[in-house]
């Protein structure tokens, strides 16, 4: 009923505006807070994944090194075997 009265219309308008602003500010704060917490959780999991990735990468590197070493040893052994086989045949040794 106040709406038709000069001044009161403005009062309600002002109140509504302030209420809207307060509501929006609260909503913004809520959404921002949720984003912050969600991002923090994502960062935490990303850190765990990064740690796991580093751990696996280290293992991979170590395995690669061991593989390379083994390959080198195999090559050396194969070279030696071939050499010995040649020598044996030259001596008339059946191998």
């Amino acid at each position, binding site marked *: 009923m106040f709406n*038709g*009265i000069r001044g*009161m219309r403005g*009062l309600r308008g002002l*109140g509504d505006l*302030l209420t809207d602003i307060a509501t929006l500010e609260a909503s913004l704060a809520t959404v921002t807070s949720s*984003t912050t917490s969600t*991002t923090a959780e994502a960062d935490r999991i990303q850190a*765990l994944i990064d740690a796991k990735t580093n751990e696996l990468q280290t293992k991979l590197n170590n395995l690669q090194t061991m593989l390379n070493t083994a390959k080198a040893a195999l090559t050396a052994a194969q070279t030696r075997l071939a050499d010995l086989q040649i020598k044996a045949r030259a001596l008339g040794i059946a191998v």
Partner: protein
Amino acid sequence: MFKGLGSLGTLTSISTLRIQYVSGEGRALYTTIPIYLKIGDTVLINIYTRAGVFVTSLIGKIEKLYNPTGNDYPSILYYSRGNDGILYTSEGSSTNNYDPSILTTSGRLYQVPTTVELPTIAFYTELANQMAWISSLKQTGFTNQTIINIDNKLTTGITATSSEIDSVRTVFKNTAAISPTQIGVSIVIGISEQNGLPYPILGITVGISPTGNYLAQSGTNYYEFKSGIWQVYSTAADLEAKIADLQGKINNAKAALAAAQARLADLRAKAQALGISI
């Protein structure tokens, strides 16, 4: 809030809310317009010239009722700022033009509230040349005759009858269901510079700012009673723009939240695939 009131200067006193614009002084002193408030109501009165130019504001609290003519007149302790820049409150009187015959309160100082005390009923009667407003009043239950009677009497300085007052009071009591977080006082009285008679010019409204100060509206501007004076708070357009800005920020924030949630879901899936306990 009301920090500026801590350094009150000359203390003056009135009991009946009488307001008169005194040319050159810029202060409200006298009116016969009855304003129906109850004890404890906080009152804001803005004074405008007939041309609608803002003169000054008073703010205070109804302390007692003075009944010089059989009608209810609120006794009000108030603050105002004189041309000397000093805030005056209602206690004693020596250098102003208050009518000693209406003084009923002396030796009392308005206590600055530590919390905002809101009025429950605000009443404002506007006079002639405000037919649109009168028309709207009629929609709320006033009769045209009531308005005319009151207008005529107010214009001529004659007090409205009790029945007229009651009819007005009833309307406002019945329409007082306004959220206390929104309502302040909405009284504006201007005084004719031509004949010195009461001449309400403009309705003004009061709310509470986010910082707890009084807010008043005049036209499309809002004013905040801050540090003892009225200062421009914002315009309606500013507030609308702020709302639009907030809505935009919320939309952006929601988008950011959605992205963060998607990222989180993706990382959780990856972590699960890696056998990571989260």
